[in-house]
């Protein structure tokens, strides 16, 4: 890379400069992301374990996530595919904002940051929509005739337990399969969704600073790089959640 041409790796360890050739803030962002990635890694590993344990009764994602806004058809995984596309797209606009920052191009940074925020907000909204349909469930109680759940409800009139078909999902019971399926869905996509939500807020703050000209005055747009790292990390996690939750 042209960037690191005049760098003597050995001499850097003698002090007076960072051997990593990286500023403190960016390095700490990386370390934070490593620890956050370990959290997500732990969640996904435990998800894999539980899923394997209940392999016989684990629902197939293409039977669960079949809804698409405004279209009354079964379109397995179409919407989540679109969500993935939106998030990858917003990752590209983010990296273009970083690139514009390297050229001190304030207008470029503004435009690309704006689209990043739009993409992120769209993703969070889609996530909420997906949760809504997951929680409300289907009319038949279970995807396409199989699966489904019942629970026993005490009927005071007959003094007996009555079996009741359950629609939708809570932490305790869901129509799609074992309770752990909904638990992990809520926890992993919720944890990720909260990361996206925080990312949108952070991006918004940085965007306002760009508008105010804070970084123009500071002489560099490194802050865009730092929030960019976080934003790409969110995209990175989604790539794994998408594979392990929806595709496999």
């Amino acid at each position, binding site marked *: *890379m042209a*960037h690191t041409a005049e*760098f003597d790796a050995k001499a850097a360890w003698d002090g*007076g400069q960072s*051997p*990593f*050739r990286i*500023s403190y803030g*960016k*390095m700490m962002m990386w370390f934070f992301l*490593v620890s956050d990635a370990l959290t997500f*890694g732990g969640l996904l*590993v435990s998800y894999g*374990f539980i899923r394997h*344990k*209940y392999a*016989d*009764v684990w629902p197939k994602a*293409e039977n669960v996530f079949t809804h698409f806004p405004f279209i009354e058809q079964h379109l397995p*995984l*179409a919407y989540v*595919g679109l969500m*993935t*596309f939106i998030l*990858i*797209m917003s990752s*590209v606009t983010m*990296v*273009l904002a970083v*690139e514009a920052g*390297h*050229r001190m191009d304030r207008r470029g940074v503004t435009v690309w940051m704006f689209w990043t925020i739009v993409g992120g907000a769209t993703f969070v909204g889609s996530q909420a929509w997906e949760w809504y349909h997951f929680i409300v469930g289907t009319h038949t*109680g*279970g995807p396409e*005739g*199989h*699966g*489904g*759940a*019942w*629970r*026993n*409800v005490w009927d005071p009139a*007959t003094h007996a*337990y009555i*079996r009741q*078909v359950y629609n939708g999902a809570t932490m*305790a*019971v869901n129509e799609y399969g*074992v*309770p752990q399926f909904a638990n992990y869905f809520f926890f992993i996509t919720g944890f990720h969704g909260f990361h996206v939500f925080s990312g949108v807020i952070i991006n918004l703050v940085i965007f306002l600073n760009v508008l105010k000209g804070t970084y123009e005055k500071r002489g*560099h747009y*490194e802050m865009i790089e730092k929030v960019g790292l976080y934003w*790409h990390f969110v995209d*990175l996690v989604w*790539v*794994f959640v998408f*594979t392990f939750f929806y*595709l*496999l």
Partner: protein
Amino acid sequence: MSEFHDDYPSYETMYNHDEAYGKKARRTLWNVFWIMLAITVFELIIGSMAPSHGWSGTLGLKVLFIGLTVVKAAAIVIWFMHLGHETKFFKYTILLPYITFILYAIFIILVEGIYSGQPGNFTRVDKIFIEQQQELKKGHDGAVSTTEAAHGDEHSSEHH
């Protein structure tokens, strides 16, 4: 930099570049995007074809999906997060601890996890749920077979 430091190089502006270099960089980034998009579309097509072709849950499909995911993840980390531009030592500082811990987590869950599948290691609630699901797979075709009295109250997962 501030008065608390020695005369550090300004790392903040180190990656700044001119328009010519930026043009090249942008082309690389868009290429990475198109490749990632193509991979995602490919995954979705394979994923939607899988049930009718009997590929669901096969080892080949799992290896394919996980492999493609790792490719996408590497693309994000190397080009979008610019880890490819950092010094060699920093790359290792980030990647080695993470890869070590995750490989260990996968290893330990594979090794210790086998006990959970052995007969006798299912807890009571596990059996009930599996029985319930298998029963539903057999007999549930949308009809509301609700009012039949169920056996045993320990099944209840009612908390409301």
